[in-house]
Every structure is written in C-alpha cells, then in structure tokens.
C-alpha cells in the first residue's frame, strides 16, 4: 500500500472528524504528524499512520456494534433483554486477537527504536547544552571543531513576547521559532548530538528530525540525525524548564558541504577576533562598555531581571539595589559565581563581556555606581 494513499485517506478522515467537532475547514498540513526529513522521522510517521488506522478500524467495529445496539436494542422499540452474560469463546477471542495485533505492532516499533538509538559511526559530533533559557552548541570534531556559541531567542520575538507588548505577532517572522545564531550541520552526514544541561532539565527537539532528547544536568545523552535536504528546520524546548520554557527555540541550518566549510571558517575567524579583543589589556571607556553591556544584558540577563532592571517575581531588582550600590567586587563575584537561582556566568562570558554587563547594570536605569574594566573581572576569577 502506498504511503501517499494512506496519507490522503488519513487526511480525509482527520478532516472529517474535525469538521464534526468544529464546523470549519482547515489546511490539511496541521492535522497530522509531520513526515519530517530523516529516516527516523519517516519511520515514526509510517508507524503512526499504521497504528492510527488500526485504531480507526477497531473504533469503527466497536462503536459500530455499540451504536447498532443502541439503535436496535432499545426498550422503546420493544426490545426484550436477553439472558446471556458470558461466553468463554468470545471472551477468549477478544483477549487473544488484540494480543496478536500488539505483537504485529511491536515488531516494526522495535526495529525503529533500535535505529533511533544507534548513534554509532557518526561523522560529526556536536555537544548541545541546555541553559535557562538558551542553547549552547559546541563542535567536538570535524571542520568546525572548537566552534562554540549560544543560541537564544531572536530579538524581534523577544520584544514581541513581552506581556502586553502590543506587537502584532503574526508580523514577526518565525515568531518564537527564531534564534540569533543558527546551529549548522552538513547534509548527508551522520551528526551525533551529545545532549546535556547546565541547570534544569530541557529537551532538544526538532520535529522534522523525528526525535527529542532530554538535556539533563549530570548526564550526557546521545542521539543522532542525518538530513539529506538543505533547509532551515525549527523546533522548541520540550521539557518544562522554568519561566521562559516557551522561549528557547532550536533552529538548525542544514547546509551543503562547501557552504558548511565556509561557515565553519567564518565562525572560527570571528571567535579568534573576539578572543583577541577580550584579551587585550586596553582600558575601555564607559560609553564602549555601556554599548556592549546593553547587548550582553539583553541576551543573558533580561529574561529574569527584565529590560527595565526591576526584576519580576522571585528575580530581584537591580535598580538601586544593595548589590549595585555596594563594592564592585561583590557584584562581580555574584555574576561570576552565581547565587541560588542566579546561574554563574564565569564560564559563559569572557572578561570583556562580563565587565561590560556589570558596568551597564551599575550605570543604567538611573544607577550611577562606577565602571568595571575587564582586568577587574580577570583579577576576581
């Protein structure tokens, strides 16, 4: 039986069911599981359709008998109740037949699961680390070895998703499904992902790849994909990870081999330049630090302490707080090493970024408590 025939029938049925419940007609795309672009996702789709059809057949049978009975065996039509209340043969049949159907399902399911969990012989390995609330990607080998960056919700979505932002979210491209820096992988290569977390449990999921994997602190989970079609694929964090769980999407660019090579080269060059800048013992002006700090703050701090600096719920205000009023050393210490729910940023940001963001916090929103230089941060590490 061809998949397309199955698909058409499924869409027809799903539409019918939906028409019955809502009375609207909709684009067929959103009704069913996505087929995706990998062998794993295609397997999942096929198995999903098989199970769905078996369920539909059983439903038609069981509900058919039930509705017929409700129609024909009703008291108002003069039906008189029969006396029977057991029949061992029938009971055996409806115990054994479902069991056989289940064995029939278990065979392809087992095969698919073994394929899904076999991450051996990968061409490229990428470490994926979940943070509240962004992803970090690190290339462990291959052309992009050493490339490492954070990927957070893009700024357009981030502004529009503020409470009562008044933004028309349908005008924001890929609302909540766009990030500032995309993960890139080459086509046709088996890419292994090592998935872990820095804080709470997250789950890395791109529906078109056909799987999700939990990112758990203290664990390194392994999974893989192989995509043959160039394109941009989007997903989201799938495990509740705190306040901004809904705002840490996953975006993967699948690139042709040569595009991937030049991307890797660019990334390495950019990383080297940033490292050189941070390492220089230049003394920065307040304006330079403030400009840089604003960006770092938006990407790393605003989710909790808010763009206004006033905090929200359990997250404290930075406006005139004892910390920003006090010695710079105390402020640097908390940002570097963390405190309670505040994560340590020492490993995430370089000295320049840290100095910039701390300066920004101490001099914005009416604060005026002096600037911090990269060398101060270096000394505090």
């Amino acid at each position, binding site marked *: 039986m061809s998949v397309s025939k199955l698909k058409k029938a499924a869409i027809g049925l799903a539409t019918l069911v939906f028409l019955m419940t809502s009375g609207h007609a909709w684009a067929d795309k959103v009704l069913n599981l996505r087929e995706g672009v990998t062998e794993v996702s295609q397997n999942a789709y096929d198995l999903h359709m098989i199970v769905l059809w078996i369920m539909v057949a059983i439903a038609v049978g069981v509900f058919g008998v039930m509705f017929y009975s409700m129609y024909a065996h009703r008291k108002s039509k003069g039906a008189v109740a029969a006396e029977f*209340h057991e029949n061992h043969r029938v009971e055996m049949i409806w115990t054994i037949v479902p069991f056989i159907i289940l064995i029939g399902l278990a065979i392809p399911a087992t095969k698919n699961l073994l394929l899904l969990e076999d991450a051996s012989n990968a061409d490229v390995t990428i470490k994926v680390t979940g943070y509240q609330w962004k992803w970090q990607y690190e290339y462990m080998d291959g052309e992009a070895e050493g490339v490492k960056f954070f990927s957070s919700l893009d700024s357009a979505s981030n502004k529009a998703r503020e409470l009562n932002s008044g933004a028309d979210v349908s005008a924001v491209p890929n609302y909540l499904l766009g990030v500032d820096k995309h993960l890139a992988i080459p086509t046709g290569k088996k890419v292994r992902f090592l998935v872990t977390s820095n804080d709470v449990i997250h789950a890395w999921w791109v529906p078109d790849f056909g799987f999700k994997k939990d990112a758990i602190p203290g664990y390194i989970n392994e999974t893989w994909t192989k995509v043959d079609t160039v394109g941009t694929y989007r997903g989201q964090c799938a495990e509740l990870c705190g306040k901004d769980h809904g705002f840490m999407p996953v975006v993967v660019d699948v690139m042709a081999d040569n595009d991937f090579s030049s991307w890797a080269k660019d990334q390495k060059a950019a990383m080297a330049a940033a490292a050189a800048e941070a390492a220089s013992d230049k003394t920065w002006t307040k304006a330079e630090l403030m400009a840089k700090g604003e960006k770092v703050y938006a990407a790393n701090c605003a989710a909790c302490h808010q763009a206004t600096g006033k905090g929200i719920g359990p997250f404290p205000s930075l406006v005139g707080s004892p910390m920003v009023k006090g010695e710079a050393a105390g402020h640097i210490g908390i940002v570097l090493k963390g405190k309670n729910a505040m994560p340590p940023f020492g490993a995430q940001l370089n000295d320049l970024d840290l100095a910039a963001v701390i300066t920004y916090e101490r001099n914005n929103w009416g604060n005026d408590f002096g600037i911090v230089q990269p060398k101060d941060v270096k000394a505090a590490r």
Partner: protein
Amino acid sequence: MSTVAAHADDHHGAPKGLTRWLFTTNHKDIGTLYLWFSFAMLLVGGAFAMVIRLELLEPGMQWVDPNFFNSMTTMHGLVMVFGAIMPAFVGLANWLIPMMIGAPDMALPRMNNWSFWILPFAGTMLLSTMFMEGGGPNFGWTFYAPLSTTYAPASTDFFIFAVHLLGFSSIMGSINIIATIINMRAPGMTLMKMPLFVWTWLITAFLLIAVMPVLAGAVTMMLTDRNFGTSFFNAAGGGDPVLFQHVFWFFGHPEVYIMILPAFGIVSQIIPTFARKRLFGYSSMVYATASIAFLSFIVWAHHMFTVGMPVAGELFFMYATVLIAVPTGVKIFNWVATMWKGSMTFELPMKWALAFVILFTIGGFSGLMLGIAPVDFQYHDTYFVVAHFHYVLVTGALFSIIAAVYYWLPKWTGHMYSEKLGNFHFWASVIFVNITFFPQHFLGLAGMPRRIPDYNVAFADFNYISSIGAFGFGLAQLVFMVMVIKCIKGGEKATDEVWEGAEGLEFEIPSPAPYHTFATPPEVK
C-alpha cells in the same frame, strides 16, 4: 421497603448544626463532605484552567506573565488530581460501599472523619502558596527535580507538606475501605458477588497503599535536598535528577489507574441497569481490573522514553505498556456485549456512561499510540499528550463521577433531578469537551510543546477553538451545581428502586437513604 432498614431508621437521625459535619463518623455525611470538597476543588482547578486557556486564546502574551502561567498549569494539575478526582472517588466509596455490601458504616469511622478533615487543611496550604513571596509552585504537577528543588520558589516547602497531608488522607481512606470490604460484608456476600464498584475500589485501595508512600518519599527527598544539604536529585552533589523521575512515575503511573479503576466500576454498575441485562463477563471484569493494577507497576518509565534509558529498558517498558491494551479492551468489549440484545433506555446516568465508553476509548487509543516508543519520541511532551490524558481524565474519570452522581443522587436526596437541566448539562459538556480537547491532538502532532504560555501563529486557530471549548465546558459545570442543589431542595419523589430493575442492596433501602442503614445485616442469596 425492607423492614430491617425501616427499623434502623427509627434509632436516631442526623445531629444538627456545624458539629454534625465536624465530628461526624457517619459514612454518608463523610461521603457528602468529600463530594462537596471535590466539587469546590473542581471549580478552583477549573478556574486555573480558564486562566491557562485565556492566555492561550491568541498568540502573544496578553494576560499573565510566564511564571504565573507555569503556576497555573502546576496548580491546575495538582488541584484536579489530588483535590477533585481522588476525593470524589473516595466520597463515592464512602457513600456507596457500606450500602452495597450491607454494612452499617465504614469499619473505622473515626479515622474516616480524620481522613476527610485533613483535606481542607492540605488544600488550603497548597492554595496559599499562590500568595507567597516568589509565587506558588511553578514546575508542573510532575515537579521534576532540579526545577522543583534548587530552582524552585520558597513556597515549595508548603507544597511538599501539603502533598504529605494529602498522602496521609489517601492512605487512611484506603485502609478504611479495605478493612470495610474485607470484614463487613453481609452474610452471603462473597467476594465474587460484590458489585464491581466495590471490587474496583478494593483493588484501587491496594494501589494507593502501595504508591502513596513512594510519593511521600519523593517529596521528602526534595525537602531534604532543598533544606538540609542532601543531594538525592542534585547531580553536582553526586545525586541523580533521573532518579526523581523514576520514583515519581513509580507512584505516578499506578496513580493514573487509581483515578480510572473506580470509574470502570461505576460504568459497570450503570450500563447493566439501563440495558436491563446482567453485566457481561463479571469475572473477566474482575480479573481485567487486577491485571491492569499489576501492569501499572511495571510500565512507569514509558513517561520517560526520552531521558536516555538503555534500549533494553525502553523495549521492556514499551512492551509492558502496550500490553495494558488487552485487559482494557476486555472491559470495553464487555460493556458493549452487555448492551447487546439488552432493552436499553437512555436516562442521564446512561448517557454519561455511554459518553464515557466512547470518549475514554479515544483516550485509550491515543494512549496506545504514545506507548509505541519510537513514535513517542515525537509525541512526548506535546499537546498530543495533553489531549490524551484529558480524554482519559476528563471524559474518563470526571465523566464517570458525574454519571455516578446522576445515578445515585435520587438515592441520596430522595428526589429525582431536573431532566431539563441535566440534559442541558450533558449535551453542553459533551460538545464543549470535544471542542476543547480534540484539536489539541492536531496541535501536538503539528509540533506544539505542552506547558508553553505563548506559541507561533501556526498554532493559533486550534488554540482559539480549544479555548472557546474550554470556556463552554467550564460554564456547563455551573449548570451541574444548580442541578444538584435543586435536587437536594426538592423535586419529584424518587422510588426506593429509583431505576426500573436497578439491582444492588442500595436500591433495596428507602430513598433518601436513612441516616443509618443495615444496622442488622441483610441476607444475600
């Protein structure tokens, strides 16, 4: 009217005033308290659901901040599971089990009083967290560590204590139910003659005793992790966040059967009455219930396929999980076979029971789909799961409770309910509940994760429909309240038998059931 019951009635009626309810050891009073408490919690948990659906009505954040949204999903789940569904079943058990087995009361009446009166305090403590500094619990009703330990608000310690109290209540309630069923059956009421509601509750009570201590263990470990420097679930201290999930779901999976086995019992009481035909396959119903209870202990990790278990583990839990379809199928086939060649009428309890059979089965189908591990890697933690468990818990557990209320309300109050209000309540509920939850299947398949406060515009249409359905379903339950109050106040007199040909000891005593029944045990042939 049996002379025995009439005689029992003369002894003494109910005391008057507030102390009647405070100090009562009467199973009927305590049953009533449980049922009203659970209805109040249904409204509270429902109000939380309305906040969730209001925020999800349209894309963009319009009403609440994401942290409060998370508190709403958490409290909605906790209040509905521990406040609404479980106490409602215990309330039904209190009212019905002694009457069904011909016992004068529960075996341990003082403990019964205490089991109930813990609940309002536990519930108040749980709800009070919403007003504490830093907000209420915001980590989902499954409270996975370390989100619920290292990263949780201060109010979490109150949540932990509330869960402990709810656990005490459940365990005491279960001990009472087991003691009553084992010791207090009327002469001649052998185990295999017990009504199925009694059977399913007996098995459920054993499940509760087995798993509530496990939940208590999980929250106690959380408590010491949070306050006393232990590291059960903290990887940085040598602990294991996945251990939390194993412990939680070892409780959590039997828990979902705790919420559905008594429902099977209720439906097995109602369908034979209105089909005017004996329940098909009584003994296979009992064995199927016991098999489901056994299987519930060896399938917990199907909630955790994506945590990175060994493949052998994933295979085991997949096989064990899909196996549950067999005994569950037996139950559904038995109900259909009971209707077959019956002489059916469709009074409201029957309508609700039939809606249960169809809609619960839909939830069962999606459950089987979720059990297939390689596809679960797609379904997991999406709205497909949300749709699944609302079909089994709302149109399953809740519908069965409502069916039970319609079925036994005339026995409790002595009056028939208003047919008009009841019919409106039924049709509004059935239509709106499907508008609410059916589109959530599509959302999940299209890739919308659960527990998110905002979404891409691609998910907008179905979320809108789902929210409209939810508002309608919520309002329909207010009609239910009006119907119940009207029925308590008055209405057409119910006969002792209530329903034509209804069987069971509870239909041999007068309507309304006297304050004391079966002071002298009846003879069961």
